[in-house]
Structure formats: structure tokens, C-alpha cells
């Protein structure tokens, strides 16, 4: 592409902290980028990395550094740029970013999508990119006309002069690329926003309704083969011996290779690969984990919970307060291992040459996954070109910190040196590990004579997901994995004596984060036990929470809004009851009220969910609504149905017949209300998940008197 404006914001964090904004713009021809903006020392960060190109036809290509997995970043992030760029929204095209340091998340130092961070970390940077490009376009027009820039303004992809003259962005692009980089770009006052905060339809909707959106599984380059991998029946198992003769005799099977993860059958298509895999003759070394069972894990954790763990929070004096309390309450809670069960099973396509490797993958962790692949194939990361496709669901799984699905593909590529796509079957995906951990918590509370909560103790038992990952140094302190105690150590309720401690047993089941991470279990447990205390003290659960949140206006704001919109306290049809919950996570506050009934045979029906969210300043309210609806469905699915269980080292679930998930006929009516706010944006991809399980469980208690202390709920009898 010729005549292009390239905007590059280099070393964003450092320079903005230093007080000056530095932008590098380059005119990208076929050769190496020529850089303008001399404040960037030559030789540093030499990878050309662009956020924006404007073509001679006026097309504005935005290069988006976040993976689109349904959360709407291919719309919300362009909105940030467009707000300042004043381009024609219809001319915007989105392109996934390559892997480069300039695209890193400034908080993690890696290119990745997760932690509900996309808008939060790009909020200033992308508006600055848009503003700088606009200033350069104005400069170019002023120069052409020989008029002061102050007499020009930009609107809808055009620059206008007071005299009425105008030039399109396409006409100005080439010249603008040579204009000096503004050292300081003023950003609009939010009151002047015309795009941010307004509901905008998804830019990727059309391609997702006509079948043309390309997911990882849809990648096919000329000659690309398909591989499926037979993996050990137990975690930690290995291949002892292999007889591939029968597999190799299957028409279409090209090769069978042993890799570190199992045995790969490589064929001309998926079905031939499967037929080959079916007749593999493998003897396994079963490894050390053949005894693991959910029941023994449960017993082990309950035993651990009898002794003190590593302290994550200690405020006041819990021990003394409990002894002097007028009433005491204890309860144990448990949640199971969970699969992410993305609709698109894991996969990774790879083409390895002597000095170059191309990877096409739906990933949430570009930096990590590229480095892991490079290490396997023996190249430098810069020699690996990772192309991010659409993700058929992420939920954290595609950001696996051990790079499992990319490493497995790289191992196959290293063995066969031919373009190959490694496909996981649903069974591989579901029984192959990396689950939300099984968690157990034991709670004790002390209540004084007047019924006030004076002492709170949560002792958690569960595997650390960050141990052994690139995040460990930042997130594990003094043996406490911060994500294990998400929402627990930093509980918002004002309780004078507070103790939270943690056991992090090592268990041979691979675990990782799952949408909303530690909040996914702690939200359920804490908000359920809080409800128990409210009922034990004969307080209204909504008012009880309010009383503990006096100086927390944003928590109170969502709690009040949800209660009001749900008609808290007003009569319901016979058999129905309401439950309420409130959780803070990822910079946002969400309260949900569920309206539930339980049939005589114990089937739980969730009729209506009212959701109030305060996620600070809104970028795309349409996305926020969709994310709340989706989060509630995702959390409800897990609460009602989902569990990965193990018996004698084997995972018992393998597909949607044994791992049921929420379907259309169980979808409640969901109403979402967004609190108006001038605070900085919070996350929206995850915060809607944690409150739904406790809201439903609390409603079940109100309807039936039965307290749910173990998920999934299943049937209530």
C-alpha cells in the first residue's frame, strides 16, 4: 500500500510518564519504514508497529492489538481512535496487529487480551493516536492552502477551511505522513464526545452472519495437513511404545509422529486423521496421577482447612472478636473444576520453514505464545510470525500461560516440517485439562448482640493458577497467589475484624484462569455466606449489605439500582423468590437480582435477572449490555450445570452430553442498567459473571429454605 499514514506511539508508558507525548509517524513504502519524529532515539524499538493507516481512497485501517473473542474490541477500540480522528465511521477497517512490543499491555508488559483490561489500558493511548493523526492531517491541509491551521477543522474524514475549501483524508494522507509529529495533542473533554458513550453496532457483525469470519479452525494454506493428537489417558502420562502401522494404512493418513504431548496423526483432512487415531496402538506410561479423584480432593481440602493457611488479610483481631461474639456462624462452600468449553475447540495452524515460522491461531497471549513456539522450533521470536484470527470464544482458555495448544502444534511442525493445523476434538478440549480450579472455603462469622457483623474469617483451599507462569513474580507474594483471594482479601464490606487465609495444595490437575478468575468462586461463596448471615440476623439481605457499605458509593449505587429496578420487596407470583448479590471486579461494580422458582421435581428456573453495572465512563453501551447478558448466561450455566470431575485419574466429562451447558430454553429475561459515571472506564468482559451464582442461590434459599453451598446446583430436592 502506498501513500499511507502510519502512526506509531512508541514507548508509550515511559514517555507519557515523563510528561511528553512522543509519536512516531512513518511513510510506509515497500522498503523499511522511514521514521519521522526525531525524539525517538534511532535504533530503539526498530520493529515497525502501526496503529493506523489512511489509504489514498480514504480507507482508515485500524490495527487492533487486542484479540476479538466476542467482547467487542474490534468495535470499541476503533471508537477510541475515531473519536479524536474525526474520520468517516463507514471507512474504518480493522486489522489484527502483528506481534510487537509496541502492542504490549503496559501493565503486564506483554501483548495479550484478558483481565477485562482492553479499554482500560487503551483508553488514553488510542485516543492520542487518533488525535495526533488528526493534527497532522490538519497541518497538511493548512500547508497546501497556505493558511493557518487554526482556520481549519476536521470532520467526518474531511478537512475544511473557513473559506469552504475542503480536502479528504485520502487526498491528504501522503502529505500528512510527512508532517511533524505533535509533541502534545489535546484530547477532547468528555462532554464533547460524539462517539464514545453512544451505542455503536459491531463492525464484525456482518462477517459473523454470512460465514466469512475466519477463525483459527478455518485457516487453510495450500498443502496444509490436519493433525489430531492422541494424548495420555492421565495427566502427566507419556508414550511408552507406539505401533503406527494400522494408522498409517488408513487412506489419507500422511504421517504418525510421537511428540512430547502424545502421538500426532497427520492426514489430508480431519476425518482421515481421526480414523487413523482410532486405530493407533499405544502403550502408555500412566504417570503419577492415576489416583486423583474429586472425592479425595474434597476430603483432602476439608482436612487442610482445619489448619491455618498463609495469611492474605488480617485486620483487627478476628480471634478475639469471634470469642466475644454473641452468635457465631460457620459454613463450608465448594465449587468444582470447570472447563471453558469455548464453542471453537482449541486449534493452531503452523507452517515452519528453515528460518521462518508462520502461526495462525486464535490466541489471547501473543507474546507468550510466540515465544513458546519459537523455543520449540528453535527460532528467535522475531522469526515467528503469529497471525491472530477471530477467537471462537476465549474465556481465558486461549491465553493459556503454559502455551499448551501452541506448543503442541509447534512440536508437530518441528517433526514433519510441513504446514499443518492441529485440531482438538471436543473430547480433547474438554478432558485435556486447564480448568478453573476446584475450590473449598470454610467461613466463620461473629455477630454481636445487636445483630451486627463483627468478625469474618474465610479460609480458602485451592490450586494456585499463577504458580509456574510468567505472572508469578508479580502476582504471588509470600506464598499468596493474589488471584486465589480475588474479592476475598479485598472484600468491600466494612467488617472490623477480618481474617483471610489460604492453602494452595499442589494437585496434578492442570488449572488456569476462567472468566472472572478468583472472583468466579469467591463471588459465589462470599455473597452466599453474607446472605446466610443476613437471614441468621433476620435482616433483609439487601438492607444488610447496604449497612456494611456506608462509605462505598459505587457499591451502593449498583446495589440500590438493581434492587429498585427488580422491585425488591414487592410481591411476586406464588412460588417465585428473589436473591441479590453484588461484586466488584476489574474496576467495575455489578449487582444482580435473580427471580427464581423451583419446580416440585427440583428443577431451578431463573425467570428474570436484573443487572446494574457501574463500569465508569462507558465506551459502547451496546457492548456493555451484551457483555452483561453473556456473563450472566456464562455464570448461570456453570452455577446450574457445569462440573469437571475426576475418578481414578480420569476426567469423567468429554462432551456436551456429559458436560451440559445453558441453552436457549433456560435463558432468563435479562435487563441491564448502566450507572452514569465520570470515573475512568472499568472492565466489562468479566465483572458480570461473579454475582449471578450467588444471586440465584440466594433466591433458591428464599424460595425453598434450602441453602446451596456446593456448585453446580443441579436439582434442588
Amino acid at each position, binding site marked *: 500500500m502506498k501513500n499511507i499514514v502510519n502512526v506509531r506511539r512508541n514507548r508509550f508508558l515511559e514517555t507519557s510518564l515523563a510528561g511528553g507525548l512522543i509519536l512516531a509517524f512513518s511513510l510506509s513504502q515497500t522498503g523499511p519504514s522511514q521514521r519521522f519524529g526525531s525524539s525517538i532515539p534511532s535504533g530503539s524499538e526498530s520493529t515497525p508497529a502501526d496503529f493506523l493507516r489512511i489509504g489514498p481512497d480514504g480507507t482508515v485501517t485500524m490495527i487492533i492489538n487486542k484479540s*476479538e473473542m*466476542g*467482547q*467487542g474490541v474490534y468495535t470499541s477500540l476503533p471508537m477510541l481512535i475515531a473519536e479524536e480522528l474525526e474520520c468517516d465511521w463507514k471507512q474504518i477497517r480493522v486489522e489484527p496487529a502483528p506481534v510487537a512490543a509496541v502492542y504490549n499491555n503496559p501493565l503486564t508488559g506483554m501483548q495479550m487480551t484478558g483481565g477485562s483490561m482492553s479499554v482500560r489500558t487503551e483508553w488514553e493511548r488510542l485516543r492520542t493516536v487518533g488525535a495526533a493523526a488528526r493534527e497532522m492531517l490538519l497541518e497538511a491541509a493548512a500547508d497546501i492552502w497556505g493558511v493557518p491551521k487554526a482556520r481549519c477543522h476536521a470532520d467526518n474524514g474531511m478537512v475544511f477551511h473557513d473559506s469552504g475549501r475542503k480536502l479528504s483524508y485520502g487526498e491528504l494522507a501522503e502529505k500528512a505522513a510527512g508532517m511533524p509529529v505533535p509533541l502534545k495533542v489535546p484530547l477532547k473533554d468528555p462532554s464533547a464526545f460524539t462517539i464514545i458513550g453512544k451505542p455503536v*453496532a*459491531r463492525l*464484525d*457483525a*456482518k*462477517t*459473523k*452472519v*454470512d*460465514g*466469512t*469470519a*475466519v*477463525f483459527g*479452525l*478455518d485457516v*487453510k494454506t495450500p498443502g496444509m495437513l*490436519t493433525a489430531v493428537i492422541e494424548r495420555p489417558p492421565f495427566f502427566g502420562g507419556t508414550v511408552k511404545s507406539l505401533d503406527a502401522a494400522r494408522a498409517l494404512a488408513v*487412506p489419507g493418513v500422511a504421517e504418525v509422529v510421537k511428540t512430547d504431548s502424545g502421538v500426532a496423526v497427520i492426514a*489430508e*483432512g*480431519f*476425518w*482421515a486423521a481421526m*480414523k487413523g487415531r482410532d486405530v493407533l496402538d499405544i502403550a502408555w506410561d500412566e504417570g503419577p496421577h492415576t489416583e486423583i479423584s474429586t472425592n479425595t480432593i474434597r476430603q483432602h481440602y476439608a482436612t487442610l482447612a482445619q489448619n491455618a493457611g498463609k495469611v492474605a488479610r488480617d485486620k483487627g483481631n478476628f480471634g478475639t472478636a469471634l470469642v466475644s461474639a454473641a452468635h457465631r456462624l460457620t459454613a463450608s462452600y465448594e465449587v468444582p473444576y470447570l472447563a471453558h*468449553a469455548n*464453542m*471453537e*475447540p482449541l486449534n493452531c495452524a503452523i507452517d515452519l520453514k528453515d528460518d521462518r515460522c508462520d502461526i495462525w491461531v486464535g490466541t489471547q497471549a501473543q507474546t507468550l505464545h510466540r515465544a513458546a513456539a519459537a523455543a520449540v522450533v528453535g527460532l528467535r521470536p522475531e522469526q515467528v510470525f503469529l497471525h491472530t484470527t*477471530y477467537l*471462537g*470464544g476465549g*474465556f481465558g482458555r486461549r491465553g493459556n500461560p503454559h502455551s499448551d495448544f501452541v506448543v503442541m502444534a509447534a512440536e508437530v511442525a518441528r517433526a514433519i516440517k510441513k504446514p499443518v493445523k492441529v*485440531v482438538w*476434538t*471436543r*473430547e480433547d478440549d474438554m478432558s485435556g485439562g486447564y480448568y478453573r480450579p476446584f475450590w473449598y472455603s470454610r467461613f466463620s462469622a461473629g455477630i454481636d448482640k445487636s445483630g451486627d457483623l463483627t468478625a469474618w474469617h474465610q479460609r480458602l483451599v485451592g490450586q494456585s493458577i499463577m504458580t509456574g507462569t510468567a505472572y508469578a513474580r508479580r502476582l504471588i507474594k509470600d506464598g499468596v497467589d493474589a488471584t486465589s483471594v480475588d474479592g476475598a482479601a479485598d472484600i468491600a464490606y466494612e467488617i472490623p475484624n477480618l481474617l483471610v487465609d489460604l492453602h494452595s495444595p499442589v494437585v496434578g490437575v492442570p488449572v488456569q484462569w476462567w472468566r472472572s478468575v478468583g472472583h468466579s468462586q469467591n463471588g459465589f461463596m462470599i455473597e452466599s455466606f453474607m446472605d446466610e448471615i443476613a437471614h441468621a440476623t433476620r435482616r433483609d439481605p439487601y438492607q444488610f449489605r447496604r449497612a456494611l457499605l456506608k462509605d462505598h458509593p459505587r457499591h451502593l449505587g449498583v446495589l440500590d439500582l438493581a434492587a429498585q429496578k427488580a422491585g425488591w420487596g414487592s410481591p411476586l407470583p406464588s412460588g417465585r423468590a428473589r436473591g441479590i448479590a453484588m461484586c466488584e471486579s476489574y474496576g467495575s461494580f455489578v449487582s444482580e437480582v435473580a427471580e427464581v422458582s423451583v419446580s416440585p421435581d427440583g428443577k431451578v428456573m431463573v425467570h428474570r435477572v436484573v443487572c446494574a453495572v457501574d463500569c465508569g465512563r462507558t465506551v459502547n453501551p451496546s457492548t456493555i449490555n*451484551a457483555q452483561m*447478558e*453473556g*456473563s*450472566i*448466561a*456464562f455464570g448461570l*450455566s456453570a452455577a446450574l450445570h457445569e462440573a469437571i470431575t475426576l475418578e481414578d485419574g480420569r476426567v469423567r466429562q468429554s*462432551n*456436551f*452430553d456429559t458436560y451440559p*451447558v*445453558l*441453552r*436457549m*430454553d433456560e*435463558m432468563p*429475561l*435479562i435487563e441491564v442498567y448502566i450507572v452514569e459515571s465520570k470515573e475512568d472506564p472499568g472492565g466489562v468482559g468479566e465483572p458480570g459473571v461473579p454475582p449471578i451464582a450467588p444471586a440465584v442461590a440466594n433466591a433458591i434459599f428464599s424460595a425453598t429454605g434450602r441453602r446451596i453451598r456446593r456448585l453446580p446446583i443441579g436439582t434442588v430436592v
Partner: protein
Amino acid sequence: MISLKVNGKMYEVDALPDTPLLWVLRDDLGLMGTKYGCGIGRCGSCTVHMDGQAVRSCAIPVASAAGKDIVTIEGLSAGGLHPVQKAWVEEDVPQCGYCQSGQIMAAAALLAANPRPDDADIDRAMSGIICRCGTYQRIRRAIHRAAAMRQG
């Protein structure tokens, strides 16, 4: 060789007769809009039309699709302009989008058979297709919208 009619075009396919139609569509015909989700007919991502009926292409051996009229998402309309597709865009239904081909094919078959479905009809027709992003509420709205559109 198996003769297949897909989206109005005839194909001669060299595949084992037990190969699921899904993998013939994807690997042999390059029609990638139909998705693999479970392989056992439990998630509906692979839904296509066979003689006008919504079927799970992962559970249909290609041999039994011979001589039938197969329509995939690529053949549902010219330019994505089927009322169901238009309604899907207007209701901003898709999130990750992976299951949506299957959802749309199921919804189109529903409306062809029942031009004015109520919520119970929609539940019956659509509960076989899983969406992990939880777009069900918008799918319901979009089906009602498409029904209204078709009646003009």
C-alpha cells in the same frame, strides 16, 4: 465418488462414505462457514439445511446426503441479505460469532416452517444450538424481528 448438491452446485466428492457431511463441506469443498463444535450432534454449530430441514452435518454421513439439496450459510442468501441475517445484524446478535452460522441456519429453517413462532416455538427449535457467549436473548429478539420482516 459421491455426488453432492450444495448451495445449488453439483460436486463429485472422493470421500469415505462414513465421512460426516461437515468435514466434506469444510475439508473438501472449502466451505468454512459451517462449524465443528462437538461432533456428536449436541451443539448445533454445524447446522445446515438438507431438503429444507435443519440438520446436524456432523452426524450425517456424506453418503446419506447424496442426492439431497444441501444449503450452508454460504448459500443461504446472496450477500448476507436473508431476513434472519439482516435481523441478526440489526439486533447486534453475534459476540464471538462461532456458533452463529448454526443459529442462523436453524432460525431460517424455523421461519420457513413457522412464519410467526412464539417464544415456546423458538425454545423448541433453537435449544439444540449452544452459544457459550450467551447471545440467546438477542437471538430470540432477532427471530421475532426476522418474522416481522418476512411478513413485510
